[in-house]
């Protein structure tokens, strides 16, 4: 065999290079992209065609209505009522103040703006991943900020004034209390134990002082019956988050506690509130809360739904935090115990910091849910943003066929920008956290 190969002359030997073949049709370029992503299989092609048909049917009228035929400025609703007119943005622009602040006196809205802007600044600082002093910002947001915001918005002292001394003996008692609190706090700081308690004591003194000194600011009183609009929506959501987080943490710890009664009570509360709709919680807070307290304590009309919302979001927060607690490896607990930390120290120094960082996305997500749910406070007569849109719609100066939809689209845009922004933030934190884990 081998001889045969060696001796026989080759049948074909290529003596020149073949011509370059044409590059493959696909793999790169827009045509290939379209083929791979829009028409890879017959079924997929049909879907693409259907989708394109849908877009061709829906998009042009939408764009025309939203932008081209829209009325951007007009003194009243006449232009918007004309046939063929699109969205009435002039109306939204005109009513913007009402959407924003409700009936809050116009000359006092700087107070609302101040509170909103400072709150926004604190939140951004607190949530900015690489910012310095985030803990401080968080502390301020959960303690100092609510007190000052209450004082600025209502114009009343942000402290239960009935506690403040009126007589000479009362002042003596208060002075005594001050001495005890400050001295106690000093001792605690000096020994370096229970610093949280010490800070709470100092905080109480500062709080009372601010309350006593507040009237000298001379802010006029603005009753909550005048509050409304986006401002109230943000307020309800903020109060919900500020109070739901601590309560939620306590409930989550209670649910994972070794103590049967504590665990039972936590589970009972969590499952009860999670099992009923927010509307019923709000109605209950509105009608039954005044029954539970003595007659002269009847809570403010805005306060009642706030309590309902805080309770409602707290139990959902408890479940989020519980997820974080469960994600902490057992070794962390054992390590903390091995070092000899007490239960509180273990929670404060080891478990909660890790658990809370893990669940930041979950917290943000429940804040999104809470923010959307604030629209329901309208059921108990609170004038939130959506309610303001619903009310402004009826103004006979503007009333017309496109008014409702314009208002709704604007509201949808507002809620979308807020919620989508927050959900992107939560995604970003999730990725960062996952990346941190991998390393």
């Amino acid at each position, binding site marked *: 065999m081998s001889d045969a190969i060696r001796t026989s002359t080759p049948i074909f030997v290529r003596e020149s290079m073949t011509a370059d073949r044409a590059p493959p049709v696909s793999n790169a370029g827009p045509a290939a992209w379209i083929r791979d992503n829009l028409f890879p299989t017959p079924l997929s092609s049909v*879907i693409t065609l259907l989708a394109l048909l849908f877009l061709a049917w829906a998009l042009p009228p939408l764009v025309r209505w939203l932008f081209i035929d829209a009325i951007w400025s007009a003194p009243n609703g006449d232009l918007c009522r004309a046939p063929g007119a699109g969205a009435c943005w002039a109306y939204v622009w005109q009513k913007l103040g009402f959407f924003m602040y409700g009936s809050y006196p116009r000359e006092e809205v700087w107070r609302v703006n101040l509170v909103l802007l400072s709150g926004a600044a604190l939140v951004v600082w607190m949530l900015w991943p690489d910012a310095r002093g985030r803990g401080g910002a968080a502390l301020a947001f959960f303690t100092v900020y609510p007190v000052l915001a209450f004082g600025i918005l209502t114009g009343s002292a942000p402290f239960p004034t009935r506690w403040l001394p009126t007589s000479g003996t009362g002042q003596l008692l208060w002075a005594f209390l001050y001495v005890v609190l400050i001295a106690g706090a000093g001792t605690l700081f000096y020994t370096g134990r229970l610093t949280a308690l010490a800070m709470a004591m100092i905080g109480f003194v500062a709080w009372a002082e601010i309350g006593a000194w507040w009237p000298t600011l001379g802010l006029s009183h603005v009753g909550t019956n005048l509050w409304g609009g986006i401002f109230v929506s943000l307020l309800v959501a903020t109060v919900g988050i500020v109070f739901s987080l601590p309560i939620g943490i306590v409930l989550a710890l209670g649910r994972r506690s070794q*103590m049967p*009664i504590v665990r039972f009570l936590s589970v009972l509360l969590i499952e*009860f509130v999670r099992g009923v709709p927010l509307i*019923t919680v709000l109605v209950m807070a509105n009608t039954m809360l005044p029954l539970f307290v003595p007659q002269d304590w009847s809570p403010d009309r805005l306060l009642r739904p706030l309590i309902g919302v805080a309770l409602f979001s707290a139990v959902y927060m408890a479940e989020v935090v519980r997820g974080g607690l469960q994600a902490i490896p057992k070794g962390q607990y054992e390590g903390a115990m091995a070092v000899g930390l*007490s239960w509180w120290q273990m929670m404060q120094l080891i478990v909660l910091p890790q658990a809370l960082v893990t669940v930041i996305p979950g917290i943000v997500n429940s804040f999104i849910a809470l923010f959307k749910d604030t629209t329901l406070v309208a059921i108990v007569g609170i004038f939130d943003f959506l309610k303001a849109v619903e009310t402004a719609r009826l103004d006979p100066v503007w009333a017309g066929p496109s008014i409702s939809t314009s208002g709704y689209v604007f509201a949808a845009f507002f809620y979308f920008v807020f919620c989508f922004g927050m959900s992107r933030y939560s995604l970003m934190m999730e990725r960062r956290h996952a990346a941190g884990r991998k390393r």
Partner: protein
Amino acid sequence: MSVIGDSGRPPPPSRRKVDVKALSIQFGLSLLLVWLAWEAVGNVAENMRARNIPTSFNFLGATAGFDINQSLISYSATSTYGRAFFVGLLNTLAVAAIGIVFATIIGFIVGIARLSQNWLAAKLATIYVEVIRNTPLLLQLFFWYTAVLAPLPGPRQTLSLPGLSWRMPEVGALMAAAVAGSFGFLLFAFVRRQLRRTNLSIPAYAAAAVCTVAALLFATLGPKVVGLGVSSGFFDLYTGAYVFLNNRGLFVPAPVLGDVGFRLLIVIGASLLGAMAFAYWAKAAREERGLIFPVGWISTAIVVLPALVVLWLGSRSLALDYPQLRGFNFNGGVRIYPEAFALVLGLSLYTASFIAEIVRAGILSVSKGQTEAASALGLRRTATLKLVVIPQAMRVVIPPLTNQYLNLTKNSSLAVFIGFPELVQVFVGTVLNQTGAMIQIISITMAVYLVISLATSIAMNMFNKRMALAER
């Protein structure tokens, strides 16, 4: 607790101490709660006395005096408040059930579309999910209620949809076609199976076409052969309009079953039993003798076919109740109210956006190795999906899916804003206002939702357990 840290002793010896502390904490907490409850009850009693708030449940038996527009049970202004409660409860359950079905279907489609390799479908699905998820449900309900109502004309200028309705003989013919087609399909499936063993194959399309033609022939000629005396053929659609759409709702003819209905019920019941028996037998046959049947198809056929036959045979005594304009409104037929439509639409679309995300996460959670291993074993694509991917995805999907179903049920209470008479609207809205019995009414309402939540959780947990076992 700091005792442990200071002494440096290991936990076990100090366990007794811990218990004492834990006990005292719990005792203190209980005491505090009892005291709070005591105070609250005292306040409630005093406040209720002061405000003349009724404390008994007697009001449930009193005459309601108001009307409700849509009810699954008979109700009038002379009925009691208790009956009004059941009207609301049934409406809540109905809306929740329908909403869950639609939300699941839309959610699964969108969730799969988000993972589709079709760029356009994936992007559209993403836009849908993000827009719907990030706007409040109430706003969407308002929008749908306005969007559904605004473009529709009044009842006198109603839109009518012609060509969608047939006279009864044609319905009979259609049913005959369905019966014949199903038999034909089964026959075809059987023949094809036999042929495959002998390495002969017939093109599926051709066979399907033959079956269809046979079915159509049978349908058009069948009634004549049987002697039902049908004058018109299958394609002779009735041109009159019997389906109406206006701002009072969608009106479609309602079948009046008469005595056929009773027979139908019996037959469906019997065939359900038969299908169950067959499934049981097929399982035994598979496990003992290794025989594999297309259980799903055959069971469906067992249930559907006899019912179709009964309908066909009785099609002459069947009638349709047509909606007609009388005075201001349409009467007769089946009516879907705009409020109900907007509510179901809003709830389904909203919940579907969450379900889509759950489904996507579930599918992504099944690792690619599973699919590859399945195809390495020679499983076909459908079998891979059915036996490998879906069971594993369902484990991840079911718990959050349960939550979404519960959320949908609870969110149906938003109907109070658009005037659909469900539990909260009827009971907490009107009845609470008329009677002032706030404690009783709010407690009953909350208890209802709690029971629904609990029942759903239990049912889903059982289902979940089955899925989890199947995995091992």
